[in-house]
């Protein structure tokens, strides 16, 4: 970065909140995307950002973007960097805007159960503040300890209890954002409204392409008074799918629905004594004592009518207590040459789900590779599935293997009526499939991006929206 540029940034942030040391630039050039992690093993090529800045106020964000728009400098907004879809990978010359110093809870409206917080707050920190006043957001994605509110919003994240609490977009009431030209915009904090399009949805899922989200107000719920656990084992995979569907149809709202196939069951319960095997459905109900018990007993009746055996609640508790360990299980696999691991998620309506899952299993099966999957959340309309593909190839082949896995997965998903991404967002290798899924909707998103960000500074390359591509 030129000295002049650095000075301009220092004018906005002060010297200590602008960094361009090689180590910092390197740190921020990397997220948890499998493809880029394995690439790094064998190639020194990397796009480094010019600098990292840490805003503390919305006005600083505004000044940054105005400056960037004028100079046509790319800006990559960075939350926790836990994206698995290369969503924060900078292009050369970019400024990374790390939001984590904007982390205050600015308002706690206990009466209306609405919390307002800055976008850089970590999921866990936010939940902690809520717990102090007897509330919960109910948003518990696996990377909860290291991901931020802004990241949740920008990727339409969903947590492990989203069957009851909904994905993040259902929790958002209003937000504040800075447009690429520096103007500060916000939406109204009202339970619902009919005053035109819902502008929250311009920013939700935008993966940093339309501006920077600086603050949001979210619906919370009462912290649960009780929690009940149950687990069931199904001989036939599809019977378990039917059981979940019937529970949703009955109007039950378990906090968690998690249904694992045998390899996934083996992974999930590996460290448990007397670990279960087979197709295991874990249910967690929480909320008011009587309600939770009532729903659990209705659910049990439904499950048992679908040919299963009841397991002890220990298995369900084990999953619940260890659900954040997922994020940490990845690292050993990824450290080793030749090893790879990828997580693919999709969702489909109930009528399509069994076939989609079966064809994904077929399409992804291969030598020296394990495919495991679980249903991660359910609604009356359908469910989401998370697949983990893990294996070994000769060193140097990992990238190619991963590409092949993605190609097979995406075409199977497209054919089976699933979505290209349920919760992780869109990486560069998913863009063609995204175009197919959205059709004209893709063109509208692209045109909207170009209109709102005519200089193309916000996360260039994301979604394939660039003029050049």
């Amino acid at each position: 970065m030129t000295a002049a540029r650095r000075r301009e940034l220092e004018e906005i942030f002060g010297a200590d909140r602008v960094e361009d040391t090689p180590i910092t630039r390197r740190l921020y050039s990397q997220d948890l995307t499998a493809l880029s992690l394995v690439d790094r093993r064998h190639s020194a090529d990397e796009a480094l950002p010019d600098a990292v800045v840490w805003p503390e106020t919305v006005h600083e964000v505004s000044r940054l973007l105005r400056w960037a728009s004028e100079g046509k400098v790319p800006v990559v907004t960075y939350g926790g960097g836990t994206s698995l879809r290369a969503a924060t990978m900078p292009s050369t010359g970019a400024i990374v805007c790390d939001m984590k110093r904007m982390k205050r809870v600015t308002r706690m409206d206990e009466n209306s159960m609405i919390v307002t917080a800055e976008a850089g707050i970590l999921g866990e920190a936010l939940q902690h503040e809520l717990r102090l006043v007897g509330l919960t957001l109910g948003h518990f994605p696996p990377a909860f300890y290291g991901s931020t509110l802004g990241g949740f919003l920008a990727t339409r994240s969903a947590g492990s209890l989203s069957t009851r609490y909904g994905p993040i977009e259902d929790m958002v009431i209003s937000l504040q954002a800075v447009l690429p030209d520096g103007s500060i915009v916000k939406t109204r904090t009202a339970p619902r409204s009919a005053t035109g399009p819902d502008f929250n949805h311009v920013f939700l899922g935008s993966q940093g392409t339309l501006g920077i989200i600086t603050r949001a107000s979210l619906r919370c719920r009462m912290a649960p008074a009780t929690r009940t656990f149950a687990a069931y084992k199904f001989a036939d995979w599809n019977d378990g799918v039917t059981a979940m569907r019937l529970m949703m149809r009955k109007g039950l709202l378990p906090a968690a629905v998690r249904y694992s196939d045998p390899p996934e069951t083996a992974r999930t319960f590996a460290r448990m004594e007397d670990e279960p095997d087979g197709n295991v459905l874990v249910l967690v109900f929480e909320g008011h004592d009587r309600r939770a018990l009532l729903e659990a007993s209705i659910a049990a009746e439904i499950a048992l009518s679908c040919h299963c055996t009841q397991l002890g609640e220990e298995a369900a508790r084990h999953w619940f207590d260890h659900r954040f360990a997922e994020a940490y299980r990845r690292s050993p696999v990824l450290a080793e040459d030749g090893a790879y691991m990828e997580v693919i998620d999709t969702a489909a309506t109930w009528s399509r789900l069994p076939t989609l899952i079966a064809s994904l299993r077929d399409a992804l099966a291969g030598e020296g590779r394990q495919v495991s999957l679980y249903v991660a959340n359910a609604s009356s309309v359908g469910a989401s599935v998370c697949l983990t593909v893990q294996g070994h190839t000769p060193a140097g082949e990992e990238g190619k293997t991963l590409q092949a896995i993605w190609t097979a997965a995406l075409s199977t998903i497209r054919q089976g009526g699933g979505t290209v991404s349920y919760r992780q967002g869109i990486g560069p290798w998913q863009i063609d499939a995204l175009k197919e899924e959205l059709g004209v909707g893709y063109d509208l998103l692209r045109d909207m991006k170009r209109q709102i960000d005519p200089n193309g500074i916000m996360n260039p390359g994301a979604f394939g929206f660039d003029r050049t591509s």
Partner: protein
Amino acid sequence: MALSLPAPAAREVVDQLAAIVGPEQVSVAPIDRLTYARDMYTVAIIKHAEGKLEHFPHVIVWPANEDELIRVVKLAPDLGLPVIPFGAGSGVCGGTLPIHGGIMLDVKRLGRIVEINDDDLTVTAQAGINGQVLEMELNRHGYTLGHFPSSIHCSTLGGWVAARSAGQLSSKYGKIEDMLIALRWVCPDGRVYSSPIVPGRSTGPDFDQILTGSEGTLGVCTEATLRICPYPADRRFVAFTFPDVPTATEAMRMMLRNDLRPAAMRLYDALDTMLVGTSGSTEHTQGKSLGDLLQIEQIGNRVRTLAPDLFRKAQRFVAGNAQIANQLELLAKEGCMLILMFEGERELTDYEFEAAVMICERLGGTNKGPKPAIRWFENRHHVSYKMSKVYYNGAFVDTIEVATTWTRLIDLYDAVCAALKPHAFLMAHFSHAYPDGCSIYFTFVTSAADADEAATKHAFIWSLAMKAAGGVGATLSHHHGIGLSKAQYMRDEHGDMMRVYRDIKTVMDDAHRFNPGKMGL
């Protein structure tokens, strides 16, 4: 009275449209142009009655299917005419008023149910389907949409989506945007947007939620997929009275906070309670609220025949003397009535019912048993249709539906009451409640000598209401939309976010061909 309307669309225009939809399905007949010149916007109704409407569509077309509709949309630029999507014209904000003339694009012939999916609990239907027809067809298959706007008999699915409609059971089932799974939509340039039918996705911003609420400014909805629910196996009713509004709203808040989801949850303020006569002796009292005041129904029929002049004068006096009418509140000894209905699976409604009764009783409610609630349920669609009588005698009525968080709710109620009571007879109910907040539905009645005075007075009262509501941070509409009548307040509501709306408009309809002059664009 002979109609003298501005010139209709030229012969060649009609011919070109007829070539697409057939000659029967295009009209420039004065009666059609007059009919399509207004929706249910109060001022337009009054102007219509006095023959003072200024704007008329050039032509009305009724395409039979999406293909014809697309061809009409693509032809419009050549004809140089605006396009106004039209559902059933039940909108109350002037959303379909052809203020620049143009092609009225009536979607009603796209009225088919495409699929009811038993496994997925979804219905896909064309946008022009009438609300009641859709619900009845679902009932026949054992389902409900759970969407019951008072206008269900006279509004369309597309209109609901376009204006973010709310039904009476929104506390349980949500508003239309909460039910939406996917859309088909013809863009202003004729391209077809179609979103995937999946239970959720992270594939960039959800454009469905940008098109929803666009009220004809971003193109035409042709099809929607919505989630449905099994028809409720059980219903439980109960009503409570509370000494005042704050006590009663506190009970509502506590129920929702504790995860209860009554299908219906309606609180009437003291005046509304007295007038809806929920404790009244006749079966049909509910729905005659304004009737009771302005028609003086019980004795009115006799008075009307004996002394029609006197009757009219009495009515106008009440409507014209807001302060006096508002004093009726002092007579409202009942306090406020809260009506609750639970529906769904038997075991769950039993639980919810008992939990709700406990909360209401603990918070000072008096249990009035199921009757008032049952009476509301049975008459729930009648009220709106009785409004028209009010107009006969120079009075007029309108409704203002604003919403805010629980914390600001009473401030909102007080602010609007204080602003409006000097100028109009005003009552309110709270009929759409959520864990985080609630909407307030104000009904005001006042009178004017003629359409011009009515328009001025109407605008004045609305400006006071919008200022009061905006002042406490409330949203300016919960479910009626913006249209023409509230367009001037869009800037107050959205601030600089209007730029984003304009950007989207530029991308989709740079020429402002679709529903020009609306939504403050």
